[in-house]
């Protein structure tokens, strides 16, 4: 047990420079603004007084290092300045918008598991069969499938033609939220599952050839029980890693999908902030999403370690 604790601590220690770097990149984003950010924000409402006010609120009148220090301090306490578009503290906006995005990612993960676990195992057991061939073709397509297109097709078929699900918005109350998120989550889960199915298929094939599976068969354990208790348990670990690697891709997808379905999440907040030059919002959303990706990656590593205790030993770098 000692070494597994060590591994986790070393992962947490690695986290510090990464989080530090993320704040640095988010901070430097404002430096990319050509010319005077205050002028960009104000446009034709520019007056020297208003510009001075904006520079003060962005901290631009301070020396650079001081600015960065203030940015980190703000990020730690959840205060990212004030949004120019909504005239509210950015921290409050983030709190309002995070729920929808988190729920979308969570629901997508559930759909991914529901789609890819049966299909992946099926493709592995019946190699060369219909499911195997179909998922192989879909895998090639999955990369080229834009999320917004999948979304529009789902809106057209299930929302407008069949009327099974709402086509946009977020609703009121938890149940209504889930109902509104079904199509968006499917939109994300379908292309993402193609990757997971292929990876589960190859790890399942590897496990199926292991000696302990043969032993289990010789003992006369029913095939279905072998698949669930012996094979899936061992095959799912590598898939968790693939999920972690591609998580950033999935979070990026939510940005687009939230806009397709007009969901009030972080992604739609980010896109809305681009045209209004709401720099504090852009910085804060980029920071929060990157931190989310890093933390969930850590989580998948820990889960992988729990699923496969062998990894906890001797993997220290």
């Amino acid at each position: 047990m000692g070494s597994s604790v060590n591994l986790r601590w070393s992962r947490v220690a690695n986290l510090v420079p990464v989080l530090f770097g993320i704040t640095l990149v988010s901070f430097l984003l404002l430096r990319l603004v050509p010319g005077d950010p205050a002028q960009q924000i104000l446009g034709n409402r520019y007056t020297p007084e208003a510009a001075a006010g904006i520079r003060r609120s962005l901290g631009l009148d301070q020396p650079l290092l001081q600015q960065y220090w203030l940015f980190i301090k703000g990020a730690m306490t959840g205060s990212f300045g004030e949004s120019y578009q909504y005239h509210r503290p950015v921290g409050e906006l983030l709190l309002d918008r995070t729920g929808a995005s988190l729920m979308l990612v969570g629901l997508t993960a559930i759909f991914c598991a529901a789609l890819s676990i049966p299909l992946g195992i099926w493709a592995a057991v019946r190699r060369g069969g219909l499911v195997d061939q179909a998922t192989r073709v879909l895998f090639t397509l999955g990369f080229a499938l834009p999320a917004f297109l999948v979304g529009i097709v789902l809106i057209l078929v299930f929302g407008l033609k069949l009327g099974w699900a709402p086509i946009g918005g977020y609703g009121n109350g938890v149940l209504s939220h889930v109902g509104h998120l079904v199509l968006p989550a499917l939109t994300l889960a379908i292309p993402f599952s193609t990757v997971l199915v292929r990876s589960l298929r190859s790890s399942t094939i590897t496990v199926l050839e292991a000696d302990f599976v043969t032993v289990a068969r010789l003992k006369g354990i029913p095939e279905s029980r072998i698949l669930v208790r012996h094979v899936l348990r061992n095959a799912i670990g590598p898939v968790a890693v693939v999920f972690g690697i591609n998580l950033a891709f999935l979070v990026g997808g939510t940005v687009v999908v939230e806009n397709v379905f007009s969901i009030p999440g972080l992604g739609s907040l980010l896109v809305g902030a681009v045209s209004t030059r709401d720099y504090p919002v852009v910085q804060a959303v980029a920071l929060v999403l990157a931190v989310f990706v890093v933390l969930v990656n850590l989580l998948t590593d820990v889960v992988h370690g729990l699923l496969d205790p062998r990894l906890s030993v001797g993997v220290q770098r």
Partner: protein
Amino acid sequence: MTVLDPAQVGRDAAPRRARWLAVPLPRAARGRPALYAGAGLLLVISVLCLGAPLFTSYSPTEIDALAVLVTPGSGGHLLGTDEFGRDLWARLLYGGRYDLAIAFGATTVTLVVGTAIGMASAYAGGWVDAVVMRIVDLFFAFPFIVLVIAIIAALGPSLRNMFIALWIASWVGYARIAHGQTSSASRYGYVIAAGCLGYSRRRILVRHVLPSVLPFVTVFAMVDAVGNVLLGASLGFLGIGIPQPTPEWGSMISGGQAYVLSNWQLSLIPGLALVLLGVAFSLLGDGLADLLRAKG
């Protein structure tokens, strides 16, 4: 964290010449259907888009108030018209130019720059290498599209800035792959031998190391091109890519979303074009990976 390994992608995706693919192919294409199908598809799309005036007499931006939302095939409009009476076929052809420009423009620059940085960093070693690779890691922490949107937000939305944002955000993939390959190549006998012969570092890198790096980054470039096409279209869809009224497939899909029940073709036809372009690059990547594996 590692990137999606292109060799792995290719291996998994390359069909073992499925039976339904057993159509008569030109002699050269036998055994490598993916490569030639991808190249052929890309060629067809490129010819259609670059030679757009040859295939349509309509302007992609001309508004015709008398021919709004014409159904496909009627009124001389092959694919009908959109809500402004603009010919969909013309918009599709002219708009594809931007998507092709993104695919090639964004990908080639980062391919060259990222590979150069990765190789140079690996060869420099020491603290330079450590710093460069930590920077690369940092970029990977951000969801790609979030980083691109954030950079566009800072620079201001425009076609030029979209390219700059793509360049800033996506060189890291190449740098990481080139770095890994250079590190392992510098342990190969012939590279060490070249060093013993007193060749300059630059000569060794270009003449001896580069050939073993190139296949990997080229295959990755095809995966990356698909990503860039989708990202460019996503930005167009979100209204922060190429500004209106310039036709671009992503913004066309977005424009058609409001009419999806009555005129689904306005969204789905540009969407199909986008998927075809993506599949062309995917197939090309698979084919190249197969080819290089067969050689190596």
